[in-house]
């Protein structure tokens, strides 16, 4: 079973009572394990809404979202919280680290919520900080880190409990070019080393260029998906 995300006919409508606005309109999306996918489109195209629906942060008005063949739209609020904890890693647009915790504690936090043993936690934290090349900043508080460093810690946190996939909403939006490339390199490296599926929304061309698959959303609809193109190219190469 290689399918991680399977969204069927998913729609999300705002202002249903007055003038309905389709943030996501009848979207079908299929993501395989290990993919490194960018969800692109102009502002208001529905990227964040679609990520929220896939991440179980919001419920669709229509359609179903299957994660590893489990329909998460049928889960209760508490079940969704537990599901997110065990299956999904999140990286948000603004540097959403817990300010009162150190970088290490932020990464450890998710594992503590999952009652992972200290020895395992410690080993994983060490490994992740090596991978994000921030072993010397483990004890720094978020306020002592640059924006790029904070996002790298957020990526480490998202990967801490080895989730099924990572959702990143505009992860480079607030970063300078150097930090953005650095972050993308790390995400790509972790995708390759840990075989973790990445799905990230962006309208940053630098990010789009690094993605192996690009899905374009306009007005809540998927208007293009390079997966089909890649498949054609791969077949042609053969």
């Amino acid at each position, binding site marked *: 079973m290689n399918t991680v995300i399977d969204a069927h006919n998913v729609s999300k409508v705002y202002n249903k009572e007055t003038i309905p606005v389709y943030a996501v309109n009848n979207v079908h999306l299929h993501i395989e394990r290990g993919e490194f996918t960018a969800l692109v489109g102009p502002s208001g195209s529905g990227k964040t809404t679609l990520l929220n629906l896939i991440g179980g*942060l919001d419920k669709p008005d229509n359609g179903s979202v299957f994660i590893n063949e489990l329909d998460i739209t049928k889960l209760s609020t508490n079940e969704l919280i537990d599901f997110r904890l065990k299956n999904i890693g999140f990286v948000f647009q603004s540097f959403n680290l817990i300010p009162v915790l150190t970088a290490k504690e932020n990464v450890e936090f998710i594992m*503590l919520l999952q009652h992972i043993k200290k020895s395992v936690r410690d080993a994983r934290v060490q490994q992740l900080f090596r991978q994000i090349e921030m072993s010397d900043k483990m004890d720094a508080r978020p306020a002592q880190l640059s924006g790029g460093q904070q996002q790298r810690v957020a990526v480490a946190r998202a990967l801490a409990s080895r989730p099924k996939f990572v959702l990143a909403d505009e992860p480079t939006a607030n970063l300078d070019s150097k930090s953005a490339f650095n972050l993308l390199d790390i995400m790509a490296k972790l995708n390759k080393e840990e075989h973790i599926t990445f799905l990230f929304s962006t309208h940053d061309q630098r990010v789009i260029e690094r993605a192996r698959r690009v899905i374009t959303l306009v007005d809540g609809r998927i208007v293009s998906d390079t997966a089909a193109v890649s498949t054609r190219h791969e077949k042609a190469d053969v």
Partner: protein
Amino acid sequence: MIFIMAWRNIWRNKMRSIVIMLSIAIGLFAGVSVLALYEGMMKSRVRNVIDSEVGHLQMHNIKFKEDYDPRYILANGAGVLTTVKGMPEVKLAASRSIAMGMLATPTGSAGVQINGVIPGLEYQVSQLQRKIIQGRPFDPVKKNEIMVGQKLAKKMKLKLRSKLVLTFTDTSGNMVSGAFRVAAIYQSDNAPLDEKNVYVNMEELNPLLGIQNAFHEIVILLKNDAAVEKMQRELQQKFPAYQIESWREISPETDLLVKTVDQYSYIIMFIIMFSLAFGIVNTMLMAILERTREIGMMVALGTNHVRIFLMIFLETIFLTLGGTPVGLFISWLATAYFNKQGLDLSGMGREMMSSFGFGTVIYPEFPADKIAGVLLIVAGTAFVSCLLPAIKALKLLPVEALRR
């Protein structure tokens, strides 16, 4: 981790947290001081009742207190008194003859309780000598001397050496009178008792009553306050024909006061903490509002509602309990100081205080036995205060919170 986060969270806005902790400390100081003051007042009141009014226990003829008929003496009183004095728990025991009568002066008359006492013993058992504010103790040579309370003296315009006549019935039901001269005016901390009780020498009252060497009352002071109930049971078994009463039964108003004042002080404590709870709720609501996005992010990451509630609860507990040791320490310091120096409440009026049976100088006592109850109220306040902010936080939808 939630514990660490909660602790660090309260220090994110140091000034705000310190202000709320200080308000808790001040509130607690006020509450505990009231408890300490009440504790001191009650202990002093009980001490007064025992040491200078009624003693720990009193023994009477079972019928005497029905209408204070002088016929109902304590049968074999002398023998009983000797037995009582020989009991190891007994510190002092003294006999009294009692007559209910009329005190008359050229200007008026008043109903009084005439206590015939053996001066040397009475001075110890009710500290009568210590209460004298004018005059002197009974002269062993002079006859027909009387001690009157200041309030009665004022009312009857009595001065030292004033003459007065006491009229009462003897054991045969005949009206008898005796002329007495004021030897001393006394003042206790209980003005109503001062107005009602006069003291004469038992040797002079008994012949008038016609009871010779008998008496109506034995007042017992024990070595230990806690032994009252035990001794009462023991004496009742030994002398079943006598009425044995403890100070609680003789002075039920004091017992009621002691019992109810605890409740009052807890109510005051509760009111103080209840008003402080609004401050805590406000602080926590502000903290939640400021951290909406952060809490939304935590829920998005998989922090369940129990942990979010726990975090907010712990923060409230830390804020509340942070001020508690300070408040308790200040209260302890203040109480210790005033316990030594005494708190002079004469500004409130000595007469008013003594009309309720209290002295004007109160020695507050740190209510160590009530601290557990106080802490329970504080913890309850913290719990109640965290509910509204916690509900607010739990209602946050991560998708909406993250948009802010």
